[in-house]
């Protein structure tokens, strides 16, 4: 069943161009120059029930804007979207009871009060039946290991503990769709790992639909089978994480260990030398050239050991962001995982 349907969704802002200095600032009082920023430029997407989808993209790509549009926080310039059959920006209560948005950069809990007080407020706002509320809360707090922190003022919690409380607040009403905007930002490795584990377990047992944005490739690799890459407000890839390397990793890395100790100087003509620590050498070679280059090297040099690897995922993605239409050419249509 399709839970999220997005067609041609676009959002642009008019931004005041502020110039530096005093005199331009004064001029800006009378005459302002505006620039139109197209945050999202026509996105089409279908997400089925139970999918855990990652949104990847550089800062400013339009990931958060898309999540905000789907949450109904802002209204689009054009295009349509339906989540669970509702148009998000109509902000119907019936829709707002069925989803949640968690933003790692913002907090919604009352700062000076224990998290439990904010939870009780949610209970009333979402009209959660008392016993069900207590059961859900206790279950979530024990899963995330913050049960004994319930009555501690939020401002006295660590960042990781606070983030866990934010997650719990968002899940109290058992949403069917969850939008997570960088939920692990700023967390240490342990807390990150805990949150990942929790999310994976929660999503698997409840079969809810989750859209996640994150800059941590580890989050994405651990949680999402489907990855949607957004750059400059457009979807440039939609498929599996490993598929990104197949599509965008335009080269491979050949590592060689020479048996005569010293790699010959001529290696540079086979490919770009990434590292040379005799007797080891690493070459960057166009993917299509790998068979020829390998056979040429093996024919001419004494090689003790050889391996051919994909470049690291982070690197591929970084390159993809810098050249959105990069080696993959027209990359709008991505393959979907089965």
């Amino acid at each position, binding site marked *: 069943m399709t839970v999220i349907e997005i067609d041609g969704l676009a959002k642009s802002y008019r931004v005041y161009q502020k110039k530096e200095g005093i005199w331009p600032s004064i001029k800006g009082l009378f005459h302002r120059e505006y620039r139109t920023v197209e945050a999202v430029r026509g996105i089409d997407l279908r997400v089925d029930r139970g999918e855990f989808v990652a949104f990847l993209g550089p800062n400013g790509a339009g990931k958060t804007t898309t999540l905000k549009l789907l*949450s109904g926080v802002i209204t689009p310039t054009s295009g349509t979207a339906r989540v669970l059959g509702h148009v998000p920006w109509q902000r119907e209560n019936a829709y707002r009871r069925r989803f949640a948005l968690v933003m790692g950069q913002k907090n919604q809990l009352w700062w000076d*009060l224990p998290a439990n007080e904010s939870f009780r*407020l949610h209970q*009333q*706002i*979402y009209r959660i039946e008392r016993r069900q509320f207590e059961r859900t809360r206790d279950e979530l707090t024990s899963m995330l290991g913050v049960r004994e922190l319930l009555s501690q003022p939020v401002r006295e919690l660590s960042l990781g503990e606070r983030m866990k409380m934010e997650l719990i607040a968002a899940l109290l009403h058992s949403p069917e769709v969850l939008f997570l905007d*960088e939920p692990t930002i700023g967390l240490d490795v342990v807390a990150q790992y805990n949150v990942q584990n929790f999310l994976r377990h929660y999503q698997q047992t409840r079969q809810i639909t989750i859209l996640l944005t994150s800059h941590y490739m580890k989050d994405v690799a651990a949680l999402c089978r489907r990855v949607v890459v957004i750059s400059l407000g457009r979807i440039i890839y939609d498929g599996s994480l490993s598929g990104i390397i197949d599509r965008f990793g335009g080269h491979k890395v050949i590592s060689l260990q020479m048996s005569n100790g010293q790699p010959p100087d001529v290696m540079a003509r086979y490919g770009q030398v990434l590292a040379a620590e005799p007797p080891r050498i690493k070459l960057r070679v166009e993917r299509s050239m790998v068979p020829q280059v390998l056979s040429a090297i093996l024919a001419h040099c004494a090689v003790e050991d050889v391996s051919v690897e994909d470049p690291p995922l982070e690197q591929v993605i970084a390159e993809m962001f810098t050249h959105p239409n990069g080696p993959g050419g027209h990359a709008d249509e991505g393959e979907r995982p089965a």
Partner: protein
Amino acid sequence: MSDHPAYFRVLLLFARNSLVRDMTFRANFIIDTISSLAWMGINLAFYVLIFQYTPMLGAGTGWGKYEFFLFLSTTLLINSLVQTLFMANADEFSELIRTGALDFALLKPIDTQFLVSLQRIDWSSLGNLGFGLVLIVYAYSQLGYAPSPVAISLYLGYVLCGVAILYSLMITLAASSVWLGRNQTLYDFWFYITNFSRYPREIYRGKYGDPLRWFFTFLVPVLVVVNVPARFLVRSLRPQTLEDWFLPAFTLFAAVASLAVSRWIFNRALASYRSASS
């Protein structure tokens, strides 16, 4: 299950959480209460001083010293209600817009205007309410009569109208920060407006007074906020002429109309809300 939350229970929780929060910062709470009470005391002393020189605010207006104390108490009651319920919220609304924290309010399955207007109750402003009530009792003891039950109910009803009008003005101004980006003039504005509302209508007379009275009665109806309920407390000032009857009727209309207009503007503001960076 109903589509709407239990608004009253949510309001009670807002009140409770705010109280718990205020109690956490006890010293701040006490200083807040004392300073606003002291400010009221100074105000009262000022009027006592004025009434040393004149028996009445303007000859024939009917506003003698103790009648005016009833008026002053009404100002106190209304202002303290508005400040307790809405002031901190309206002030924060502007920040919610600037920082993008309004996102969370928009996600909740509850009326956004209700949530934004009432989530922080400022208990320390309630001190003035007590002060006002004490002053009313004192003024009546000096006047030598008591208000009738009808007068009391009319009074309470019109106090609520006054609160509604001031709230509408406040939330409209706060909502305008969606378009202005930032609006920190709220407290200033509040001071200017209540400055006009805190004197009897009768003093706005003459070449400059008439236009002012007209403007602040019909366009920005702050002059009816205190004046209309206060007159119900004062026996000698009960409505007699046609205009006296017209004003209470108009006040009812003004309360409903300003609530409607402010709600319309609030919703327009939400539609223009663009959130802030991540």
